[in-house]
């Protein structure tokens, strides 16, 4: 049985002192940023590095933000997402452990099937969003946000200890792997050239371990954060550069950074934890009711169930909605107003959409204003401009779903 990894010793080798530039958004109090295995690779390819959730990551490379964004939707882009936390949960009671922390029907996952789920607290608030995959090798593979790393590890490790003390067979291991996301309409075709498995048999939200461009032991999961078809490849850290270089050899592939990652996910209507959902939003308010497992709703056996389940029938809550408007771009914290001019909510994410050439945003409004087509106002720099509640995704998604 595997033992839980020591987080500090795994990170210690990669902690680097930051030279001169100031760093914002650090999740810890130290003045150092973690580096992924691809740090030098990013610099060599013209990556402009910034601080994000305690990591040094490229915000863009030599291409402009807009070009990088559009390239992803027309060809494919390679993102280094190694900053995200990857963990494995082992043992006969691994599903019991996971279900004690998340809202989804984890027991019902088929071998190698994954799902988006949510860690919740007793008040019904969302602690993080994550992807849980039931690996056929006999463990759960969990990917969660870098910004919630310490919180999530403590949550999972405490629960492991609690269950172990009761005699349960469960353990946690933090993975040392890099994580590369290859996203776009030509991602599968690019990857197929380097794998023996038939990728037509790996639909959206399924996963498999395979050799990729000569690197063995890679977990390939058909998922992503862009709305396009694509994969996330968990690769041993020592081989990450070799794999990235092999993928980049294909002229279809370009490197993309955090800037494009954010505008792509926003067009796809995907939440950013900390902006669009946080500990003060419930899954129902976040328009994520679909993550609540059917069995779990009936059993009311997940954290915060007594708050969350009654919200399903009630219309009293605010809701996360999509907004589109022309004029000045709408950004987080812009007030949302009713047509009469009363403040009714706030924007949580927004940007000019490179694909639509309109401004898109997400925000919270009271239930009665949440229907698509509802006209509202958004305030930008003390001026009000019209906006419309819109269905998400703003740009159609292209997930590879078998019919």
């Amino acid at each position, binding site marked *: 049985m595997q033992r839980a990894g020591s987080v500090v010793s795994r990170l210690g080798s990669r902690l680097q002192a930051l030279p001169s530039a100031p760093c914002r958004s650090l999740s810890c109090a130290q003045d150092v940023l973690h580096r992924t295995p691809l740090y030098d690779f990013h610099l060599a390819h013209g990556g402009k590095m910034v601080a994000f959730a305690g990591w040094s990551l490229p915000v863009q490379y030599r291409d402009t933000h807009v070009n990088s964004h559009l390239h992803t939707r027309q060809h494919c882009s390679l993102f280094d997402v190694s900053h995200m936390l990857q963990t494995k949960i082992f043992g006969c009671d691994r599903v019991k452990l996971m279900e004690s922390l998340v809202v989804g029907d984890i027991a019902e996952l088929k071998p190698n099937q994954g799902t988006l789920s949510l860690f919740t607290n007793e008040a019904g608030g969302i602690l993080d969003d994550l992807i849980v995959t039931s690996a056929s090798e006999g463990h759960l593979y969990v990917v969660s946000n870098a910004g919630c790393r310490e919180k999530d590890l403590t949550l999972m490790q405490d629960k492991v200890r609690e269950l172990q003390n009761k005699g349960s067979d469960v353990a946690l291991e933090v993975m040392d792997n890099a994580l590369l996301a290859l996203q776009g309409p030509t991602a599968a075709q690019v990857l197929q050239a380097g794998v023996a498995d038939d990728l037509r048999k790996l639909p959206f939200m399924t996963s498999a371990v395979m050799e990729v461009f000569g690197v063995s032991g890679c977990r390939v999961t058909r998922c992503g954060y862009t709305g396009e078809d694509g994969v996330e490849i968990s690769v041993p850290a020592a081989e990450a550069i070799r794999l990235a270089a092999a993928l980049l050899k294909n002229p279809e592939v370009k490197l993309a950074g955090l800037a494009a990652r954010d505008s792509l996910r926003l067009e796809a209507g995907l939440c950013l934890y900390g*902006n669009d959902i946080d500990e003060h939003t419930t899954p129902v308010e976040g328009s994520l009711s679909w993550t609540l497992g059917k069995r779990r709703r009936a059993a009311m056996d997940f954290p915060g169930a007594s708050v969350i389940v009654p919200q399903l029938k009630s219309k009293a809550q605010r809701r996360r909605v999509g907004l589109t408007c022309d004029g*000045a771009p709408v950004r987080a914290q812009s007030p949302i107003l009713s047509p009469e001019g009363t403040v009714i909510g706030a924007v949580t994410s927004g*940007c000019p959409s490179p694909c639509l050439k309109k401004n898109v945003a997400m925000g919270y409004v009271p239930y009665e204003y949440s229907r698509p087509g509802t006209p509202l106002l958004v305030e930008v720099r003390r001026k009000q401009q019209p906006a419309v509640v819109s269905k998400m995704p703003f740009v159609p998604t292209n997930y590879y779903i078998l019919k």
Partner: protein
Amino acid sequence: MALRAVRSVRAAVGSLCAISAPSAGCSPRPWGLRAGAVRALRTGPALLSVRKFTEKHEWVKTENSVGTVGISNFAQEALGDVVYCSLPEVGTKLNKQEEFGALESVKAASELYSPLSGKVTEINKALAENPGLVNKSCYEDG
């Protein structure tokens, strides 16, 4: 240029604030100017047609009591592709250092601060259809 204003005064000191979205930020490299300093650049034959730069990376060129305002090449490069220009209406009275608009990229908004006190007589209408002019031609058409 972004706008023209009547009655030029000496360029003000301040900062072009980039309000970056939470996902990532960009830190502008420190430039060569000391606090309070203004650098004058002679660009044309007329002695009065001198482009002065503020510490906020804006420039102002004055001629016959009319000042033309724009942003520097360094600023447009740091900002990235400009997708929207928020400019004041003609006739607006501005005070030195007052916020008069913003330039938006996909990622962030950068507020603009007036280097002069005066009244807006003209705004660059071409920027409504073609905000990218700020990047392509920050000293002339943008």
